[in-house]
């Protein structure tokens, strides 16, 4: 769920649209408090503007479905609590950093795939739409190409245009 929170942040939706709380069966009053607080919090945020966040939300979903992220979520305990076959154990902090980086990368890739659904784009156009540096787009696009999820569609003048490919 930390990853979902991080994704809500990067996508601009904001992690305060979600809340995870532990309540034991005996804690009715605590539950009522949590709901009251979270209702107020949601009220303050205002209605969720679905139209505005359609694209980032689609990218968040794509990221969460990506096998890299699902693997990393699932295997957390294995990696941090136990040693691997080489007797290495990941420190929780290191692991968190790794996970954050992976999440960001996957999210950017997901964004690229989502914007390419609308039609062929150049790297520069993608960078503008997603509001990311051209260099970052190039890196992620490269990875997508290697995995057969994006490809060159042609040239507009001298500028290469890319399209998304079904994985």
């Amino acid at each position, binding site marked *: 769920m930390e990853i979902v929170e991080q994704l809500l942040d990067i996508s601009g939706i904001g992690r305060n649209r979600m809340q995870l709380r532990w309540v034991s069966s005996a804690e009715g009053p605590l539950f*009522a408090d949590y709901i009251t607080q979270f209702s107020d919090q949601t009220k303050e945020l205002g209605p969720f503007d679905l139209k505005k966040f359609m694209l980032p939300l689609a990218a968040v979903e794509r990221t969460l*479905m990506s*096998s890299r992220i*699902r*693997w990393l*979520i*699932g*295997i957390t305990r*294995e990696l941090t609590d136990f040693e691997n076959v080489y007797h290495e154990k990941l420190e929780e902090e290191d692991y968190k950093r790794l996970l954050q980086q992976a999440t960001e990368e996957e999210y950017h890739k997901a964004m690229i795939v989502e914007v390419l659904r609308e039609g062929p784009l150049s790297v520069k156009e993608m960078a503008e739409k997603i509001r990311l540096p051209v260099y970052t787009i190039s890196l992620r696009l490269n990875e997508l190409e290697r995995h057969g999820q994006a490809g060159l569609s042609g040239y507009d003048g001298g500028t290469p245009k890319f399209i998304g490919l079904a994985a």
Partner: protein
Amino acid sequence: MPDMKDEDIRIGVFICHCGSNIAGYLDMEELSEYAEKLPHVTFVQRNLYSCSEAGISEIKKGIMEHDLNRVIVASCTPRTHEPLFRSSCAEAGLNPYLFEMVNIRDQCSWVHMKEREDGTDKAKDQIRMGVAKAALLEPQEPIMSDVQIRALVIGGGISGMTAALSLANRGYEVVLVEKEKNLGGMLNQIYKLAPTMTDASALAEEKIRAVTGHPNITLFTGSKVNAAQGFIGKYQIDIETESGIKKIDFGVILIATGASVYTPEGLYGYDGQRIITQLEMERLLKKGLDQGIKNIVMIQCVGSRNEDRPYCSRICCQTAVKNAMLIKNQIPEAKISILYRDMQMYGVENEELFRDSKAKGIRYINYDSVQPPEVESDKVRVYHALLGREMLLPADLVVLSTPLIAHEDAVEISQLLRISIDENGFFLEGHVKLRPLDFATDGIFLCGSAHYPANIREAVAQGLGAASRASIPLSQGSVVVEPIISVLANEDACIACGLCVALCPYGALEIQKTEKGEKVHVIDVACKGCGCCAAACPQKALDITHFRDRQIFAVIEAGGAEAQ
């Protein structure tokens, strides 16, 4: 029912007034009118009390007269009433898993008493969500599994022996595994038992004789459990005995591995000679005390209720008071001071013992953990908080009350059997009040100090209780498991990565060789339907019956839509 066409689905919605509990706060007319307009809903009825005999017969009549193949009751909480309504559906010939319950009382009318309109809107949404779920429900068959009529008891201390005898006396075959060469555990080291002051050895001998001579008990001493797999009814256990590995199947397992006494190395100058633990005190008492000992100081909470071990070991106060009384019996003129932080003397007998000890002249001095006592060569220095000054107590013998700590084997056993331990390393019960002697994993039970420091009486009571719990599946011979379980919904998608196997808290998943290569296999009876496998599966190959992805998606979508 995958082959059921959309238009064949006939949902009946029964809305309960619950007297005025619901009807007093929500607009019932509006609710039923609304429900009638929802897709697939063919029949809507309001009942004064759906759970009453009249209500139940209305539901059954509705199912038969209107040919309903899905039923929704919008009333109280499924946590209490779902079983009742499910069985009503079954009586009317409808598969009980084609029933869905909507909670419009406990989580609606009762908590939104002053918001009739918004509460009614919420109830409408919840009913709409229920209808969306109901349309996608599938019939399920209960899962039955045979139980191997044999119990494994791990640990031959007082609670383990008590449990083993109790089960054996009921006619069940019991295998008792004890790590040490002798039965008895901690009991062997204790002198006398409070409050009756009977000999611990007498109790130990009696139990050991009964266990060793019992025709239904097979005893393996000097042995330990080496490997374990399986689930309730069929646990396959490897026991490492003195004569090699024995592979035996069990229906149930009882954990009675006890605890260890903390050795206070480096605390208060502990040396095992003049500065000793309460357990070492018991041994001295057994031998008979040296009459030259005149002054004794006991210090409570040594190595407990601190940062490393924040818990109270519960039984050390009783032990200290009991041992102080026993010292008085052997050396009547001995001066005994007990330095304590708080006295934990729960229960009537302990209270009486405490009172008697004061009458006998045993002195109690409260100390603050910030300013703990200091042990010197022949005296103990303690700051008396009430008097506000330091006291010097002469001491020929200093006795440290150290806590029981989790047994060193607990971690290994918890990993072998996939059962939980708490933050202090003791085994953790399934529920503190509802399942205090069970583990969350079915078919495994818990008693004695393996769970938490227990005195002999408590260990015996828990041993009897755990045996009683364990005898339920043994006497029934089979277990019925709720068919809300994980299923491999998309076999082709499964890549046998094993992530779910590693994650499953119940050991309910395994990788099997199939014609299509290696695939995950769900052990129905072991699965609890928690769904963490389905939520984690990178391939989305696993799903949970009755809580399928598509069912939940449909409910989310229905809930998000605006009420018409």
